[in-house]
């Protein structure tokens, strides 16, 4: 089975969020970057589990500059066989999908896995856009994924119910919590990752369909109103009469 996993390079979950250039760009100075957790914990690890059980290869693809390579090496250390980096700063979600589609369209991947969203842009756009550009079916927000007899079976939480869906390969899957458990790379994996193939390819010609014109930080929160524990019931009264939310 040929598996492609989309790996996004994002600021650490605890990173300070600040902007530069008149609030038009994220201020990455001094910020630690990581593999997007949904891509790493769920998409990549499930891809590796399927490969280990059924044979095949796991390739990762990342759209970004050379600055993303430590993040890509982390994915290789966890166990991916090889990696591709499309050498461009992506313009928007559609650009990422278009770059991956340009690479993947004639490679015959059976399974393309992506996290359900990235923790920086939070758009949930790239997976379904990629599926559309490749004219493939899409299993969205999967919490479980299995492959047998050329078919993928996934579970997804929809409107509070669990839906079990099935689809013939090839298919694009967006991966959510529940699909796999996080793997910590061991020393052997980290050493092996240094020499695994990382192919850098030039970008396809694309145009931006959207741009972010300005970032802003939310207004500071008003001071918390404290209620003594012995009068805890008063909280319910305040939520009803003052906040009017119950």
């Amino acid at each position, binding site marked *: 089975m040929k598996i492609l996993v989309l790996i996004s390079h994002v600021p650490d979950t605890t990173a300070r969020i600040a902007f530069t250039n008149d609030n038009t760009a994220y201020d990455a100075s001094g910020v630690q970057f990581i593999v997007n957790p949904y891509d790493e914990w769920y998409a990549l690890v499930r891809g590796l589990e399927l490969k280990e059980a059924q044979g095949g290869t796991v390739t990762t693809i990342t759209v970004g500059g050379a600055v993303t390579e430590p993040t890509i090496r982390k994915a290789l250390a966890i166990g991916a066989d090889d990696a591709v980096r499309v050498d461009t700063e992506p313009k928007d979600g559609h650009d990422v999908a278009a770059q991956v589609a340009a690479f993947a369209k004639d490679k015959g991947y059976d399974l393309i896995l992506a996290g359900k969203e990235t923790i920086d842009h939070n758009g949930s756009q790239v997976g379904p856009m990629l599926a559309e550009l490749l004219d493939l079916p899409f299993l969205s927000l999967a919490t479980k994924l299995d492959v047998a007899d050329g078919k993928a079976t996934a579970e997804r939480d929809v409107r509070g119910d669990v839906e079990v869906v099935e689809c013939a390969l090839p298919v694009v899957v967006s991966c959510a919590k529940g699909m796999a458990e996080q793997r910590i790379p061991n020393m052997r994996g980290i050493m092996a990752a240094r020499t695994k193939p990382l192919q850098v390819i030039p970008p396809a010609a694309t145009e931006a369909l959207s741009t972010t014109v300005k970032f802003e930080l939310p207004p500071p929160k008003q001071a918390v109103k404290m209620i003594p524990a012995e009068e*805890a*019931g008063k909280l319910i009264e305040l939520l009803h009469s003052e906040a009017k939310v119950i």
Partner: protein
Amino acid sequence: MSVIVFADTRGGKVAKNTLETLTYGRKIAAKDGGTVTLVTFGDAPQDRLSALDANKVVVARNIGDADSQQLTRLVVDMAGKEGAQWIIFSHDDTGKAVAPRVAAKLKAGEVAGAITLPNEQGHIKRNVFSGKAQAWVELKTPVKVVSVLPNSIPVEAASPGASVEEYSGDLGAAKVTVKETRKAGEGIPLPEAEVVVSAGRGMKGPENWGMVEELAKELHAATACSRPVADMDWRPHHEHVGQTGLAIRPNLYIAIGISGAIQHLAGVNGSKVIAVINSDPEAPFFKAADYGIVGDAFEVLPKLIEAAKKLNAER
């Protein structure tokens, strides 16, 4: 201005997010007296569809929500027929799968998870960095796709009276099929809940969740939990809210025995009001809270349940 609103109208009643997307579409159309066409699918009864405030409702009866390619063909075909300049979705489970496909197919710019209408420059605001910041986005294409974050746009009163047509085009065979649907229990689905009662490690063990569930029941709330609680299997994974679980934005989020790590806050910081109960006065969650109680959950919870029962008895 021709506007298409796509909505999931299945289930027992019209969902609040459908009304939110209709309000959104109507406000865009109203700028130059344009029309709103609601595109939907499934088995919603005729009278419910005709009661919606759109100029026209087009329903594809024979498809479900699982195959995003069929739904994409439906929306793309209707967008062409109506000459739509705006296509509005809810940023819900179905909208998240279909809106980006429609945008890619039409080479249209998309705002995913809009929290405002377009401003005077036509820019639309959305949450980024898991709610820790916001971004104004400009769409550069003649056709524009927007998915609206649930609970962001106040619903405005509608003047019902839509004509309902059944869609008769060819949407192809479904490649994705539903093998089984396991209905959740009687509780309120977490993503749709307006009030959420959430608890963490401070509850000491899964056997103590009875009080949490009782408070949730009295407040007509859904229950949620922190990541450690889901990872220890005290509670099911689908209840985990936070950066790597579910992001929710209810009107009220009550957090009991959750310290409020930045990863947890990322999943709940869109909540309109946050109340925090924690035995540690230094818990970081108090900085993000509107109301706080420093106290032991096992002493505070019975008082909250009693007060909620009293409130319910009075109204």
